[in-house]
């Protein structure tokens, strides 16, 4: 029975609706990203703004193209439900702020076409589209994807104006050495591989600093952890996301980090270094909570979040890449159907296995 035949039946109850809509939900998530994004523009200047804009436009463009090619009749309504816009926004938050224009375009293509539409469009994708694009870009173009700049207001160099920003964005000129900088995770990983332990590498002059307010190099998503956190708490407050997933992700990173750091501080980064790096907060509140690609029970979300956190820590600590959040999210995305299969809510009047409850011996209350 197809849906047309079902809706041809008389209209069933309920005759009232709570008023929530996909567009409203997506809009609220975007609102939650606004403070961190604007702060990112201030930190990294015009090139970062262009990157953000083009990433979103490219996602919307590829979404429209895919819908047209698939013969979807309601292109406008689907396009403006805000999901493609949000994908682009989240991808831009996870890219190096001065990445060149083609990173935005290729990223948009991978996220929307390969990450989402080939699976059947909104609600059907197995993997988080923004993270698919992030990982595909990182693996394919490691150099521009690991080129971080120091926040400009904190450097002696004058920030590029609008035209200079456009030139940097479009021509992908190599960045001046003084402005290029490694992220903390990348730096410590490189130093550790050279045999320099954390005590010495972090004490070095060029060591990246940790900062809650974002005075450090990194993507938008990792620079302003405090603002991201505020946005995440707003989302929990208005009920868009529940606290389970973010708490589990952060716990999944923090617990192994705390244990290993207390055992061997020379080789294992501290909890704060882990939580403030590699867009951990962004991942916990905005990426791991993606409705489509995460489990739909709270218990399932806790398992999912812990898995992401733990995998992130493992990849960061022993893996080939300094950052692990995107990989961890994709791995756990693949496990989501399995988690949903095994973790189901208990039905009222039944036990966890679905058998009806026994009738009690001594009846009554």
């Amino acid at each position, binding site marked *: *029975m*197809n*849906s047309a035949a*079902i*809706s041809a*039946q*008389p*209209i*069933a*109850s*309920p*005759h*009232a*609706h*709570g*008023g*929530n*809509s*996909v567009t*409203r*939900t997506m809009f609220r998530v975007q609102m939650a990203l606004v403070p961190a994004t604007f702060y990112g523009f201030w930190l990294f200047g015009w090139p970062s703004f262009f990157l953000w804009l083009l990433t979103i436009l490219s996602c919307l463009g590829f979404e429209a193209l895919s819908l047209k090619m698939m013969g979807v009749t*309601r292109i406008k*309504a*689907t396009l403006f*439900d805000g*999901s493609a816009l949000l994908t682009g926004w989240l991808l831009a938050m996870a890219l190096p702020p001065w990445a060149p224009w083609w990173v935005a375009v290729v990223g948009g293509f991978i996220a929307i076409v390969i990450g989402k539409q080939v699976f059947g*469009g*909104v*609600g*059907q994708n197995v993997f988080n589209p923004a993270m698919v694009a992030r990982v595909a870009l990182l693996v394919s173009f490691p150099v521009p994807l690991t080129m971080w700049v120091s926040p400009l207001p904190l450097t002696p160099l004058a920030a590029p104006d609008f035209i200079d920003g456009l030139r940097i964005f479009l021509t992908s000129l190599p960045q001046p050495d003084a402005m290029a900088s490694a992220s903390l995770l990348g730096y410590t990983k490189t130093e550790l591989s050279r045999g320099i332990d954390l005590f010495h590498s972090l004490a070095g002059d060029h060591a990246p600093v940790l900062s809650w307010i974002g005075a450090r190099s990194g993507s938008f998503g990792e620079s302003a952890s405090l603002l991201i956190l505020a946005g995440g708490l707003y989302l929990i407050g208005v009920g868009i996301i*529940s*606290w*389970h997933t973010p708490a589990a992700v952060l716990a999944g990173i923090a617990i192994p980090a705390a244990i290993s750091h207390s055992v061997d501080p020379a080789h294992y980064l501290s909890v704060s270094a882990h939580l403030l790096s590699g867009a951990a907060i962004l991942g916990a509140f905005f990426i791991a909570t993606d*409705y*489509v690609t995460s489990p*739909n*029970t*709270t218990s399932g979300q806790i398992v999912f979040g812990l898995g992401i956190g733990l995998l992130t820590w493992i990849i960061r600590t022993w893996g080939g890449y300094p950052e692990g959040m995107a990989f961890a999210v994709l791995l756990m995305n693949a496990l989501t159907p399995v988690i*949903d299969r095994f973790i*189901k*809510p*208990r*039905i*009222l*009047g*039944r036990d966890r296995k*679905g058998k*009806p*409850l*026994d*009738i*009690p011996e001594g*009846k*009554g*209350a």
Partner: protein
Amino acid sequence: MGFMNLFKHFLGDDWGVHPDDHKRPAADQPVRVMPVPAKLYLPLQQHLGGAARPSVLVGQKVKKGEMIAEAQGMVSAPLHAPTSGTITAVTEITAPHPSGLTLPAIILEADGADEWIELHGCDDPFALDPAEIGKRVADAGVVGLGGAAFPSAVKLIGASRAKVTTLVMNGGECEPYLSCDDRLMRDAAAGIVDGIRIMLHATGAKVALVGIEDNKPEAIVAMQAAASGFDAVQIRPVPARYPMGSEKQLIQVLTGIEVPADGRPADIGVIVHNVGTALALRTAVREGKPLISRLLTVNGNCASQPGNIEVRVGTLAEEVIAFAGGLKGDGLGLARRVMGGPMMGMQIPHWRVPVVKGTSGILAFDTVEVAEQEPNPCIRCGSCVKACPMGLLPLEMSSRIRNEAYGEAIDLGLKDCIACGCCAYVCPSKIPLVQYFVHAKGELAAQDRAKLRTDATKKLALQRQERLEREAREKAEANAKRKAEREAAAAAKAAAQAESVG
């Protein structure tokens, strides 16, 4: 309580939804009593179970309260004349159902005298035998007035057999827009408490827990005052949350016990009745008056004077609305007509549909309230999972049903679905989830019927085949026997000839 709820909400243990209740100002208006209309339309099926069988003839004169159709079968209820007058027809009328299909009904033309038959009340119901109370309730045609309209006597008699200990009284009225139970509890608290005490006597239950949602403070105060002095009747305010008035949910909140799936409340020593039913039962037992009228709420943005109206059963919704003050702008902005509440009520095709015993509301919604929208694809947000009071996975069930995998939908708990509508209410994609579930349940019932039919046909075909085979076998055996006999005879003949030759 408030803090605990907040904490539970934080933990994610928060079933149900919190719709705008839209109960006021209708709930605060005094009850209006509607005069008897010229004609009453009385469907024979006003309750769960078997339809009543007409016991009057066309042209017969009846008095108010006279039985006009008798109960038929174990679970059924009789029907009484809501006023005195003449039976003009036993025919088909539009049923209170979205399909607009017809239903057999008795049509009664009022004579204006509104004259009662001789009534046999009882001054001391507590002296009556519980079985006698059950009989009187059954004879009065009392059914559950909360909406499901289950014959009350069947529950009472079943309860006294099942040794029920707790009577749960449903004063939750969790459906938005409706306020008839609220109004009854404010205006007739003493009668309701008396009815509850009669129910306790009839069932043998030790205690009655009256659950009233905390958005009805006046009703709580009135009921507490009426119940003071009766220790067995306890008024229990419960948080306003839909579907608090659902049997299994209310029992769990008030007693802490879960009704086992596939079981009935009586299995755990509980029965549930509506507060309105308690009042109707009291009237039936004390005054001997059958159930012929009820209080209902007229509400919705299109209703010009929302409020509660006492209406004779059988009155057309059209006339109720006209009495209530009509529709705003002559119904220009009307988007949907609903009988019952907005969450579980039925859409009706037009207003020429009669009020039945279970009709708790007549709602006239405008486009803002209905807000019909095209469904979008599911984004797996899980809102429906959080809202479901039964702990089901509506999004998974609906995707299975879309693919006609009804068996998988059953494994996911389709049969535990109470069709409360919470999932569809919260769905941001506006997916008509309840419609999917109702559709699947209907499809499964049809499949079951088809299976019974094919099984029967298969059995017949098999029997026929067996019979044909047996006949063929018998024929073959007979032929073989005859052939053998013939051959034996021929051989004997040949032998005899050979002998004679030799």
